[in-house]
């Protein structure tokens, strides 16, 4: 339904520092990373290792203090904060569902905001059905469990088959069965050409990933090479 995803991104020497009182914290301490189109990369590491900060820098919500980030292919030369949902979709830790829209409307929102809700409807229904959300489609996020909300957030990210998909702990609140379905869908997206990077503690995600990168103290410590 959308153009075949192409491209990926390369990050070189990304550094991000914060001040926490008098202390200076290096959330990213020189991260080199490359994710290619069609590749599923799992990013693992303990809490506070810098995974979420890295995703925030990659999607443009934060700017690196040092280093370089370059998107490739059709996205080449674009700043990440200018990329639209079909180009860069994400699943943030807080999910970011619109509280006043039903789960179905949340999933369909990217299409609606592009003026073509009808065009996205079949794919949205497929995703809702695939994630076991059809019977909850009319519920507001607050009327659904955290796991159900998370599945809706992933469905929304997948709706427009993005060129790049970034997901922060997308299976954190799932039982095994639903986690597998989510990981299958993410892997399918990668097979369809998306460049996918997921931060996760889920060992099943590691198994499905093309590569697993380990992060600690703001640095990639293992599996850095492609």
């Amino acid at each position, binding site marked *: 339904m959308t153009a075949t995803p192409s491209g990926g991104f390369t990050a070189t020497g990304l550094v991000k520092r914060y001040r926490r009182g008098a202390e200076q914290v290096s959330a990213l301490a020189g991260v080199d990373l490359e994710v290619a189109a069609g590749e599923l990369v799992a990013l693992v590491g303990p809490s506070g290792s810098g995974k979420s900060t890295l995703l925030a820098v990659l*999607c443009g919500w934060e700017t690196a203090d040092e280093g370089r980030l370059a998107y490739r292919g059709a996205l080449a030369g674009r700043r990440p904060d200018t990329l639209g949902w079909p180009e860069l979709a994400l699943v943030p830790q807080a999910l970011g569902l619109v509280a*006043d*829209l039903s789960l179905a409307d949340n999933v369909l*929102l990217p299409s609606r905001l592009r003026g073509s809700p009808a065009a996205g409807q079949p794919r949205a229904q497929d995703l809702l059905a695939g994630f076991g959300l059809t019977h909850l489609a009319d519920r507001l996020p607050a009327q659904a469990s955290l796991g159900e909300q998370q599945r809706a957030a992933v469905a929304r990210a997948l709706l427009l088959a993005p060129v790049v998909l970034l997901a922060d702990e997308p299976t954190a609140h799932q039982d095994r069965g639903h986690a597998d379905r989510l990981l299958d869908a993410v892997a399918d997206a990668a097979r369809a050409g998306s460049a996918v990077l997921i931060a996760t503690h889920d060992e099943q995600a590691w198994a499905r990933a093309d590569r697993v990168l380990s992060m600690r103290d703001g640095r990639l410590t293992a599996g850095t090479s492609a």
Partner: protein
Amino acid sequence: MTRGLWRLPPWTRAPWLGLRRPAAVVAVLVTSAVLACAVASAPLFLSSARSAALQQQLAGQCAEAGWGRTQGFFAVPPGTPPAEVIAGLDGLRAGWAEQGRRSERVLQVQRAVGAGGNPQAGMLVRDPAGAPVTQPATLFWRPGATGHVQVVDSLDAPGVWLPAGYADAVGARVGDEITVSGRRVAVSGVYTDLFETDPGTYWCDHGDLYLNLVSANVPPPALVLATDQETFAQLAAAAGFAMVTEQVPADATTLSVTRARALAAAQERAARGSPAPAGGVEFLGGGWNGRLDDAIGRAELIAAGLRGPVVPVAVAGALLALALVAAAGSAWVDRRAAEVRLLAARGVGPVPLAGKAALELGVPALAGAALGWAASRLLIAGLGPADDLDPGATRAAVAAGIAAFVVGLAGAAGVAGLRAQGTAERPPGAAPRWPSRVPWEVALLVAAGWCWGLLQTRDAVVSDGGVAQVNGLLVAFPLLAVAGAAVLLARLLTALLPRLRRWAGHRGPAVFLAVNRLAAARLATATLLAAVTLPVAVLGYTATLTATSQTTLDAKVGVQIGATRAVVSVSRFAPTPAIDDVGTLVVRYDGSVAAAAGEGDGRGRRDVQVLAVDPADFASTAFWDESFADVPLPELLAALTGPEIDGRVPVVAAGLPPGDPGLRLGRAPVAAEVVAGARVLPGRRTADPVVLVAAGRLPEVERSAGAGRVAEVWTDGELGPAVDALVDAGGVRSRDLEPADVQQTANFLGLTWTFGYLSALAVFVGVIAVGGLLLHLEARSRTRVTGYVMARRLGLGRGTHLRSLLVELGGVAVTGLALGAAIAAAAVALVYRRLDVDLLRPPTPLLDVPWAAIGTTAAVTVLVPALAALYAQRAADRADPATVLRE
């Protein structure tokens, strides 16, 4: 277990824990302030109204009307030495001194023992040559009296001062001696007659001594001033009588009823407790200032009339505010959700949870109650009828503030406890509980219907001693009806939101997002809608009824006088250009017409008032409202200049059918034909019909006809030019007609203040609605900002989001505005005809819609949500996506 809970940190540290959630603290502080303000303002307002009613009555009188005054009449034996006379008159002063007050003395001799030994009015005066003078004199002494007159001539010596006109009559000059009541006294001063000057406030209360107020044939005795008490005492001993007034000045412009009552009681005690006069002086009788008692009584009456409507309004405001405090308690649960849920999940019951809430919210609730009390005091001082409050009212307001704190905190804590327990027990997506689905507001409508039923059997406005009082039902009915209808309509409209949501699915993103936000928070939407509808409806209702009653009062005065003012004369004179310049000349006749069966005086006649007018300029001066007739006044007057009908003069009438009325002016028949009619005509002073006829077409009516001819100059301007025009035309001014002569303003204060208080409640509710809107935005800001930040990434434009906020908040406001206006219109239509403040005088109530006030309300109603939308948009724009979406 429960007892032990109170010793655990969540309770022992609760007063400090509350401060960690400033939003909940601020919510409780503000809502407690609103509650305390609502309950404390009622006693303060009633006291303020009482003071203002007193002050306004006294303002229309001489300053002495509001002073403490005792008076005594004394017989003074001839030959009593002056010192003994003065000592004998000191009793009243001693009476005041016993009350701890210092009084000012006024001495008069208004009568004297005559030649036959009987009392007679005034003191007999003989000229310097010893010849008697026809006009007697009144002797007067008051500190500074000779300093408050225009001096013609004077000596610095004891004696008496004569008015210039009297000095001429007596043939006395300064330095001469005249005889007053048989005693020789020096003329040490001559002053200009007071009736020829503007004597000022000093003489205001003594007008009866120098003005012919009762238009008697004989002028009052001449006002002779004694230069000192000793001179006065000598002459009083000669006259045989003296009158003493001891007065304690008070500033009537700042007088409260309590202080006035204390003054009135003091003067009564001073009068009753005065020692018997010493020496040969004999006390004949006395009294005290009855005008102060009258003013106090009327002020109490006005305030009593206010109590009926004000109490239900205050109760309604307090209940509303209590609901807000309870909502703040609910907000505390949201803000402390994590801890509260944990405690509830571990089996902590609603009572300890409510106790924890009370401990956390106690200090802000107390501070809020104190602030609310202070706010009510400031509001009444700034906006109330008067700033002079009774101490009892302040004490009552303090008690009300304390009660508001206790009840408010209990309410907030109770709701917090129950809701905290319920939150932990209810799974996500659970259906709302049954109480929220019951339309409780129908009970309000039933109560309103009951009030309306009662109102059908009672007067909406009653007059008690001339004081108009609003029946409390007239306030309770619309309040209940408006509140019930507002909530019911809000509930019905929000029930349509799911359908609206489906419709919005086919609209653009702005409308889609707005409608979904409204539908997702249905209760908040309904509450906001009711919160907008209620003040709009109450304001529309009160503003319209206030304007209507004022317009009706003005119209009654206008109809009674005929124009804004009038000067009346019994002399005959012709109209002049000067009269035409200031207004119009109207000649009034006592007339009669042939009565229909069952009407009239039993001799087949019915009285009418006949006004001979100048059709050319009558319409431009006469008071007129388009409701008085089906056609404009100029058109009616044009009929007066039409051709005669079978030799009869065309006339216009109110209260007579078309045709030949068989008109007579006095006993003189006038061939007339009623060619046009009106419901009301200006100049109607009795319940009889009014007939207008062109003055130029009316035959000359002889004095012997007994038509009671009176000429009147009607004017829309000041009285002075009209008087001048009348005098220049050769008329003698008999009396003036001013609006204040027709209606005592103070009598209708209760009416104005009742609706004013109701309007204040509406503004109060409006302020609450604005506060509620901001709280609503603040409470939902986190989810809104999170959704906005993510939606921006999804492709939502900033402008689209702002439009969605405008549609969301503006939609509620405009809908509330429309509902409020419709409810107000319905309530006004039901009530306004019953709001006749004076049944005796036409016209019946005239509906006056205050478009400016309504337009302002509409503008504010639209502006506030627009500003709120901009505020919400700004808050969303300032959010940091990385921070928002990581939490």
